[in-house]
């Protein structure tokens, strides 16, 4: 593992290496309620064994890793041997074989993120924290890992904390993030729900409600999801007036009009708004126009009015020829 210093095999904690499993004192117990929840998961599938991965997430949500007790718990409920459960648990990267810190910090070091700085970020955090891959700081706050591609290449380089995205990081921003986490702060992710902790998010992954009160649950769902790269294509299309050809429906039905996003409602963070501003300042007139259009101070655009929605929508007659001719590819391949 050139890029990462030492061999991945040496660092691996999942897969076929059957190292000794640490016994950890003072683990929260798997209670009758945990069992009831596990049975609820088993009932969701035509065959209960399908719930094994969710159940292992559930075990992690209580104990922070797949403990020997958790293996036995799953084995008992599913009528399998502990070896059968262990064989599954050790196959998957997200199932941890020793206790995870309060937060799991994952740095993407796959090629694209690595060339844009992901490798530097991982090395800096590893040096700062004094831990390597899949190791936890002595104070129990952070488990660090290098991750494979996290499906956020357009936001590279990315770091996740408890699988919530912190996009377009650099060494300094990642250091600041980890420092804040160690001080007990929970900086909001670029994309994702307000930060909880590794155990909390494991409950979400088990398929159970993570939040007791509805408002917190809704806030989690409403956490931002769209970064500038997510929206760059739709915004450019709006600026250029480019649309898909309208439906060939005999009676025109209103096709969806692309709503003009307003700040704070598209899940934009201040950082993303700043990025928008930067784009606008870049001097590209088309993009500047677009950014102004999205500015929070801009009055509600006419596109909201049903009568004028057509002008914004995909069914505007004037566009038909233009978009149609443009997309009915005469180009032979």
């Amino acid at each position, binding site marked *: 593992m050139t890029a990462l210093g030492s061999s991945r095999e040496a660092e691996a904690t999942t897969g*076929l290496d059957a190292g000794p499993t640490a016994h950890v004192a003072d683990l929260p117990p798997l209670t009758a309620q945990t069992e009831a929840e596990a049975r609820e998961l088993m009932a969701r599938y035509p065959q209960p064994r399908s719930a094994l991965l969710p159940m292992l*997430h559930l075990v992690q949500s209580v104990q922070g890793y797949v403990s020997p007790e958790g293996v036995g718990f799953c084995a008992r409920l599913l009528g399998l041997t502990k070896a059968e459960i262990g064989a599954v648990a050790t196959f998957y990267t997200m199932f941890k074989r020793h206790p995870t810190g309060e937060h799991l910090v994952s740095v993407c070091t796959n090629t694209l993120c690595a060339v844009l700085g992901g490798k530097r970020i991982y090395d800096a955090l590893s040096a700062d924290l004094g831990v390597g891959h899949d190791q936890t700081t002595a104070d129990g706050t952070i488990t660090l890992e290098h991750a494979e591609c996290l499906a956020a*290449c357009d936001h590279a380089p990315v770091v996740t904390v408890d699988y919530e995205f912190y996009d377009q990081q650099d060494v300094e921003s990642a250091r600041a993030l980890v420092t804040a986490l160690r001080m007990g702060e929970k900086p909001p992710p670029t994309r994702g*729900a307000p930060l909880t902790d590794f155990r909390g998010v494991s409950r979400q992954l088990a*398929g159970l409600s993570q939040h007791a009160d509805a408002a917190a649950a809704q806030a989690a769902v409403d956490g931002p999801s769209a970064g500038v790269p997510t929206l760059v*294509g739709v915004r450019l299309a709006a600026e250029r007036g480019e649309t898909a050809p309208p439906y060939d429906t005999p009676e025109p039905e209103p096709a969806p009009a692309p709503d003009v996003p307003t700040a704070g409602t598209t899940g934009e963070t201040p950082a993303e708004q700043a990025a928008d501003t930067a784009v606008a300042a870049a001097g590209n007139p088309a993009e500047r126009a677009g950014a102004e259009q999205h500015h929070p101070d801009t009055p509600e655009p006419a596109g909201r009015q049903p009568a004028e929605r057509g002008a914004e929508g995909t069914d505007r007659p004037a566009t038909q020829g233009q978009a149609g001719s443009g997309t009915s*590819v005469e180009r032979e391949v």
Partner: protein
Amino acid sequence: MPLTPVLTQRFAAERSWTLETYERLDGYAALRQALAMTPDELVALVKDSGLRGRGGAGFPTGMKWSFIPQPKPGETPTGPAAAPKYLVVNADEGEPGTCKDVPLMMADPHSLIEGVAIAAYAIRSHFAVIYVRGEAVHAHRRLVAAVQEAYAAGYLGTDVLGSGWDVELVVHAGAGAYICGEETALLESLEGYRGQPRLKPPFPAVAGLYGSPTVINNVETLATVPYVVRGGAEWFKRFGPEKSPGPKIYSLSGRVVHPGQYEAPMGTTMRELLAMAGGVRPGHRLKFWTPGGSSTPYFTPEHLDVPLDFDSVGKAGSMLGTTALMVFDETDSIVEATLRFTEFYAHESCGKCTPCREGTSWLVQVLERLVHGQGKATDLDLLTDIADNILGRSFCALGDGATSCIASSMKYFRDDYVALLPPDEQVRLGRSLRLEPVAAVPVGAMA
């Protein structure tokens, strides 16, 4: 070619992930339309549209649906036709460079759910699962919330919209294994086993989840289905080439000014997409790129005008894959990039078959010594030889995919490998006398 936002059209809408927004913007109109049709009519419509799978392989979607054995009228069904049918959504996005499904599920989860409902009805299924990559927790969260909304509104559950047809939809989180993006490994994982691929045949259409007929479709494929229903086959064919039509989300990343999601007709070229994305970062030039993720052979600047559709990219020597366009410039070492990709495959190889399990690790060892300036003259042929022994001899496509970056980097950038050899090894190779000195990208540029 212009941008044509269809699947991405709601991305910028206010609270785009809610049922309220989705319904306001034509949401679930396609499901109502679909339920007024027979399942066979729906399968025929999707066949006629020419929609091909967006997960990488490009298999015709309607044909896949039609492979599900169905009871014949007037006969008592036996065998697979009598078994329950399942629909499984492959939302295990993890191919390096690929970042289209996660943003789609976060921004517009109902479009996927509507596509699931339509597809399940078309194949006469009453149970569907979305297998979401575990790391994509916010997408999982949005999907779970959207599924709850859809149940409450009668788009899922018993007697969907009064049609008499029932469907259950479960959102299922994976646990970190790239191999589970392979459809039979995904089924194994979904059944609660290690995610290792199954031998085919039997294909999932006959013996899939729990041994029953199963359709496995990618997120983007199913999210496209409602628009096919709304617009019709002829409308859909107005996007892109005849044999590979439709709008497509192209994901640009890496050394471009404005990385991100650009939805355009199939067959849009990299030159056009790069122009939309503001080009390669100032002061630098394109060196190599992937048309569809790390498992697709590299392209170079000479491929800028290849129409990015399944057939054209195949003809040009690569694969459309997931239209994950990773852009690298002259400061990026092709050998080091190839090493990182190969380390990825070695890590993610499930261990089931020998060529992939052993071969990917051997490739890493050879590439490592090359990158460290300790390569041997014979290593270039050795890499090719190992790759040849993985390609076509592996159990599943992961092994094949692992050889793409090796073979294509050798093909287009052999001199970059030679330049990393120590001088005496270059002499041994008989190349240093003939070659112009090659300016090697400094190793460690990635660090």
